[in-house]
């Protein structure tokens, strides 16, 4: 019999019951809650007169709706009355059911996928769910983590379980060394470009290979975060010393004897050498260049040195029509060099790229320079209150402000534009977020997905630049 994959191990360790009809009950160790996808779940509990199964398995914060200015005013700082009700509803629900919430004025508040790992609420070997598709982020810790809908949020609150059908196993192996200026964001965009936005549908993906192992935890989180953009609900990376060192000393990480016991258990969280995957995809790290999306789906991506594609060269009629529609929406002509796309705004933030390492990379690029006068706005939105405090302790805020970028309060912000931060109709944005869908960052807005250093360089120049090539030329 062949060995087990990491996903097999995590699945088996949480299997409460395998039913005859092929479905299974899977135990959930941690649920993260936020204001947008939880109110109807709490209401469902109330209507059915149910209580949470295990209150301590849940941790809540408010992130999607919160304004990124005027945080000292707390909930009163939310101008939009509908948003305000949603944020207040999370607070009252958490209070009613006894769930810990990091509210708007708590230093620990932030994007749910930033604060879980930061606090040690995300641990290796866990099953982690949240009513948010980017829950795949937490798989970076050798955890089984995925997004769920609101009915399932209610189901987990009430039963501590989910009804699941096991996914197939896929391994994405990235071997070799990444070139300077090429980051985790470029790796995952290149993977999505290769396998497509539905390439991972029905699979749990394990990211492996020397290039993945050499990434920091921040980088691994960025890769796992966008697994959903490749169609797979869950992405994961095996536990190694990098994982354990990141978790050590976190506020909610195990302490003392429990720490030793936990580390022993976590060290088994790798695929066996003889494990068999249903599908294996390999990429050569050295071939990956900084990526820029040109269309309205994350698979519509190319190298910064590339050009906007020509639909006339696409043989498949459905794909051709998709490209034509995307170019029309994006206001781009075929064959335009990526570096000639003029930008209106720059957004550095989101659960993909708003951790301290991301902000350091962006700050290094803008240090001593000035944002292009052609831009309407360039903003930096840290992922949490603690990321913000850390950045300020390192003086990164001063660097951003001196260069003409705005330094904001933590939240999801312009990634999905549920708060006041949004693109205007027809505006192009270099964004470190995860989705370039039509209207995602604002009605008629045009998103180009990039890594933090690329976004920072675009802010300085007003258009995309190949920073890796520029560095080489400077040498």
């Amino acid at each position, binding site marked *: 019999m062949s060995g087990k994959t990491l996903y097999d191990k995590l699945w088996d360790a949480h299997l409460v019951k395998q039913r005859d*009809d092929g479905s299974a009950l899977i135990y959930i160790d941690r649920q993260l809650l936020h204001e947008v996808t939880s109110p109807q779940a709490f209401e469902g509990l109330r209507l*059915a007169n149910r209580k949470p199964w295990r209150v301590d398995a849940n941790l809540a914060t408010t992130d999607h709706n919160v304004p990124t200015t005027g945080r000292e005013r707390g909930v009163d700082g939310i101008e939009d009355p509908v948003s305000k009700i949603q944020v207040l509803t999370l607070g009252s629900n958490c209070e009613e059911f006894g769930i810990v919430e990091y509210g708007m004025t708590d230093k620990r508040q932030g994007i749910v996928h930033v604060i879980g790992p930061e606090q040690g609420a995300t641990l290796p070997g866990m099953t982690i769910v949240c009513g948010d598709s980017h829950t795949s982020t937490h798989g970076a810790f050798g955890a089984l983590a995925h997004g769920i809908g609101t009915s399932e949020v209610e*189901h987990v609150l009430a039963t501590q379980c989910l009804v699941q059908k096991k996914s197939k196993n896929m391994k994405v192996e990235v071997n070799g060394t990444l070139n300077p200026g090429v980051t985790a964001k470029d790796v995952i965009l290149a993977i999505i470009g290769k396998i497509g936005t539905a390439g991972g549908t029905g699979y749990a993906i394990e990211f492996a290979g020397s290039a993945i192992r050499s990434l920091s935890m921040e980088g691994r989180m960025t890769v796992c975060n966008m697994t959903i953009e490749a169609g797979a609900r869950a992405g994961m990376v095996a536990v190694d010393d990098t994982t354990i060192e990141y978790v050590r000393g976190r506020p909610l990480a195990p302490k003392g004897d429990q720490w030793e016991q936990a580390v022993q258990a976590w060290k088994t969280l790798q695929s066996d050498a003889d494990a068999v995957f249903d599908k294996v995809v390999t990429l050569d790290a050295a071939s990956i260049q900084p990526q820029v999306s040109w269309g309205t789906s994350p698979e519509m991506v190319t190298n910064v040195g590339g050009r906007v594609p020509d639909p006339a060269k696409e043989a498949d009629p459905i794909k051709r029509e998709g490209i034509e529609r995307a170019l029309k929406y994006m206001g781009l002509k075929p064959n335009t060099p990526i570096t000639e796309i003029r930008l209106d705004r720059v957004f550095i933030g989101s659960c993909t790229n708003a951790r301290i390492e991301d902000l350091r990379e962006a700050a290094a690029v803008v240090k001593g320079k000035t944002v292009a006068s052609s831009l309407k706005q360039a903003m930096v939105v840290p992922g949490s209150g603690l990321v913000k405090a850390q950045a300020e302790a390192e003086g990164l805020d001063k660097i951003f402000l001196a260069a003409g970028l705005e330094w904001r309060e933590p939240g999801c912000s312009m990634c999905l534009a549920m708060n006041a931060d949004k693109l205007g109709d027809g505006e192009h944005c270099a964004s470190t977020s995860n989705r370039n869908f039509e209207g995602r960052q604002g009605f008629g807005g045009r998103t180009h997905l990039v890594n933090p250093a690329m976004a920072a360089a675009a802010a300085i120049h007003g258009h995309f630049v190949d920073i890796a090539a520029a560095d080489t030329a400077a040498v």
Partner: protein
Amino acid sequence: MRAFTQHQGLVAPLDRSNVDTDMIIPKQFLKSIKRTGFGPNLFDELRYLDEGQPGRDNSQRPLNPDFVLNQPRYQGASVLLARSNFGCGSSREHAPWALEDFGFRVIIAPSFADIFYNNSFKNGLLPLVLDEKIVDQLFQRVEANPGYQLTVDLEQQVVLTPEGDSFPFEVDNFRRHCLLNGLDDIGVTLEDADNISAFEAKRRQDAPWLFEPLS
């Protein structure tokens, strides 16, 4: 949840792949704390020419005449025919809520994104996978025949066409069972409460650090 056994209805064709849930229901409508009322804003950015806002009277807004659901021949449609990877992106259950609220009971496509697929079953909305060639054929027939209807029989797991075809489809037994009977699956899971408690007790013993209180 409303039970689903058999449904006959008018088919509307949405001829594009990778329809994402942002497109199905844009973010500004996610601020609601209710499960209902999303229908008037289904496909808001495709359906109207201006930007929609929650609470606004949609009847006064300019409609996009090119959008398929605005065409007179598709009024009252309850079966949506779509292309591959339907429902990709955000996990928002507001997407099936909006489709259901608008009046759809069935979505037919060659493939669905996982989370959307799962969410649909929880809301009496049947996402139904047919082979790409059959979907292609259905697009042509819908286009050629105004008033084109399909019958979907979940019990027999077939789609019946006016031409007399019977296309079989697959669906998981558990999901089918819940949908056919309109079951609340939390209630079904809680029948296993003893099993869950036993599992939890063992897990607490094996991995006590997972049961420390949060603060």
